[in-house]
């Protein structure tokens, strides 16, 4: 189906099912239970899951296949966001032109940076991309303030022209991002007994785009082009002596992944029309690297899992404060309750970084193939064939 092998079709169908049903899957706990803290099925986070999923899928096309480790991909995401917000300011609040512009501009920007950076390999390449991204960040933060609004971030205001739309709504508010009138902010709630599920327009727009992005990435992985990219990672010498010039292939991969990043950036701005410079900083580039490795570089689904995991921690774990802990353990005698809260305290809430750090270490130490390998092991434990298999390419360093 869809021009894919059976295995890949299954994977795609699973991903479609998971994303479409995400509002249910991510809200497994009844609204009133103590575990409701762990529900992640609210629009903003669901959007983040898929948007960062797109970012990581794109990054993986470059890193997972060619082994070229870019440390500056956040720059493309940022450029995408700025383009989209400018579109909202100047043109209209329809997200379609915004997203198209994001992808195009990010593509052009990555073409330029890739063309220069790909003159070098290995760590030298990584540092070149890092340097470009840090320069973009520093400039966006300071001298480019007229375009980027500096540290505060580029926002839409009541006096933007929006030549194809309206500057303000009748009641004096800023209009809302939409897709031909369907507002991204629109949500519908569904209450089923103790459970409550939220369906968000914005999420489904992102989800559909992520599925498309994922589908394209499968096609790329299974294509001759994808094979060339893996060959580049494996042995550039042999590549040359087989009559192939690695550079255009890596450049194409770089630009494709830059466009994915641009798409993610454009979507982020479409869901929440603000573009901040920090999303171009090296930490943001590092984050997508971590997502990809954590999930399993070079695997199809891994980056999405990694993105989900990191975003989950950032958004859910950071919210568990002592108060919440006390409610959980309130059934215990006071002394024990305080002890439990005391033990967990450093790891949740503002300590979420600590937990994330520990998880990074545990995952690499025990699951060298990332979360995907964890999934495979569980799959094997139940004697089934591994459900989320991927290419035969194993993760290799960015030599």
């Amino acid at each position, binding site marked *: 189906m869809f021009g894919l092998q059976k295995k890949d079709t299954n994977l795609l169908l699973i991903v479609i099912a998971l994303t479409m049903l995400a509002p249910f899957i991510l809200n497994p706990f009844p609204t009133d239970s103590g575990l409701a803290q762990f529900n992640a099925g609210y629009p903003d986070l669901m959007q983040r899951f898929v948007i960062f999923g797109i970012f990581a899928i794109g990054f993986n096309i470059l890193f997972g296949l060619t082994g070229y480790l870019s440390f500056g991909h956040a720059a493309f995401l940022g450029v995408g966001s700025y383009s989209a917000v400018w579109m909202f300011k100047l043109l209209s609040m329809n997200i379609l032109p915004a997203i198209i512009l994001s992808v195009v501009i990010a593509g052009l920007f990555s073409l330029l940076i890739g063309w220069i950076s790909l003159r070098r390999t290995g760590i030298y390449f990584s540092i070149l991309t890092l340097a470009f991204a840090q320069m973009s960040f520093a400039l966006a933060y300071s001298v480019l303030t007229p375009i980027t609004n*500096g540290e*505060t971030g580029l*926002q839409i205001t009541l006096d933007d022209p929006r030549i194809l739309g309206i500057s303000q709504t009748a009641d004096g508010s800023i209009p809302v991002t939409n897709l031909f009138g369907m507002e991204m902010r629109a949500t519908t709630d569904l209450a089923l007994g103790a459970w409550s599920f939220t369906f968000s327009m914005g999420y489904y727009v992102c989800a559909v785009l992520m599925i498309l992005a994922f589908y394209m990435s499968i096609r790329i992985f299974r294509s001759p082009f994808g094979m060339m990219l893996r060959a580049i990672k494996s042995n550039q010498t042999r590549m040359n002596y087989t009559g192939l010039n690695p550079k255009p292939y890596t450049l194409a991969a770089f630009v494709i992944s830059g466009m994915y990043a641009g798409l993610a950036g454009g979507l982020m701005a479409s869901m929440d029309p603000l573009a901040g410079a920090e999303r171009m900083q090296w930490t943001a580039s590092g984050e997508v690297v971590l997502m990809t490795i954590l999930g399993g570089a070079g695997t199809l689904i891994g980056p999405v899992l990694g993105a989900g995991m990191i975003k989950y921690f950032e958004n859910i774990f950071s919210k568990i404060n002592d108060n919440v802990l006390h409610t959980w353990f309130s059934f215990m005698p006071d002394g024990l309750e305080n002890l439990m809260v005391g033990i967990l305290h450093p790891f949740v809430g*503002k300590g979420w*970084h600590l937990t994330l750090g520990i998880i990074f270490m545990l995952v690499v130490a025990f699951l060298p193939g990332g979360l995907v390998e964890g999934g495979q092991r569980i799959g094997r434990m139940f004697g089934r064939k591994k459900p989320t298999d991927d290419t035969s390419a194993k993760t290799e360093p960015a030599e």
Partner: protein
Amino acid sequence: ASHSGFTNAPGDSTVTLGFNVPQSGPYADEGADELRAYELAVEHLNGGGDGGMMGTFSSKVLDGTGILGRKVEYVTGDTQTKSDAARASAKSMIEKDGAIMITGGSSSGVAVAVQGLCQEAGVIFMAGLTHSNDTTGKDKKANGFRHFFNGYMSAAALAPVLEGLYGNDRKAYHLTADYTWGWTQQESIAAATEALGWETVNNVLTPLAATDFSSYIAPVLDSGADVLVLNHYGGNMVNSLTNAVQFGLRNKQVNGKNFEIVVPLFSRLMARGAGENIKGIVGSTNWHWSLQDEGSKAFVKSFGTKYGFPPSQAAHTCYVQTLLYADAVTRAGSFNPCAVVEALEGFEFDGMGNGPTLYRAEDHQCFKDVLVVRGKENPTSEFDLLEVVEVTPAAQVTYSPDNPMFAGGQLGSCNPGA
């Protein structure tokens, strides 16, 4: 619950507030203090503890039964002092936890970004620490309120003191954090000091991420300036001040005068970071625990008893914002943001620490007394780092809503959301 006409209308028993503070990153200590204050405020609102400022507050509608009879619950989030992250965190509080009011933060960039979000989402934003003119200037929003002072007010309060201490004939060199707060504060201070007759020799923007300012300090020595104004805060301030002292600026004589350093915006937590270097340096602050009015004393006692050390200005602002919100809701008799906005606009109150205070309707800026402080030469304790040189009355720092430094934005209309 979306049929009540506004976002996140609370149920009958509880109401959820969102405390969005920096829990990681360079302002994490301030964030922690803000959180303490919020917890204390919630305790007081729910009828626990000694009631803190509820007893001294001029409005008496709060009775310790929560807000409009609903028990106050809260969620916390981490802004990481980044606009993006702060917005994400606030979004999740609104979307996931059903927070009806967002408060907190420790940076103007964050405040502006979150305020914009709250406006769009239709909830109230009670800003925490934010000192940029823009927050209630060009970036003001109908759903947002600020109980902190701003760059203009600092300048207005500082200028007479500076004149008294350092005279009218000074050449000032500014180092400025390169973002909204730095720019507006620098603009305000420069304007106010120039009005005294000072000359602004130079203004150098420094990256927010900078840690070593030595290469920005060195040129100061050469510039002929005799005052250095550090429009820095947090880690930036600690480091730039330390560097300036290391380079011997304070012992220098220029133009026949002692070289002076001014840090227009002080906080006790930062003063602790800067250690010895802070001694004798003048700046302004929103509030200080040594104030002797009833409200301040009640708050310091309540906070100090619970946590063992006095509250910072961050804690003070956040505590007050929470009570003010609760009070406004109670007076309005509704959680509807538009009703709350109405109740807060033009609200005058007292007993919250800085004397009689006004929440101005035109821009949602509050006007109250501003403290001019100086690093204490002989601290008696680890908390006793600043001495209050002058309490500048509110009237002296009040400006008209169309002041050019605040021009540009529109308040818009209140947005109750869904």
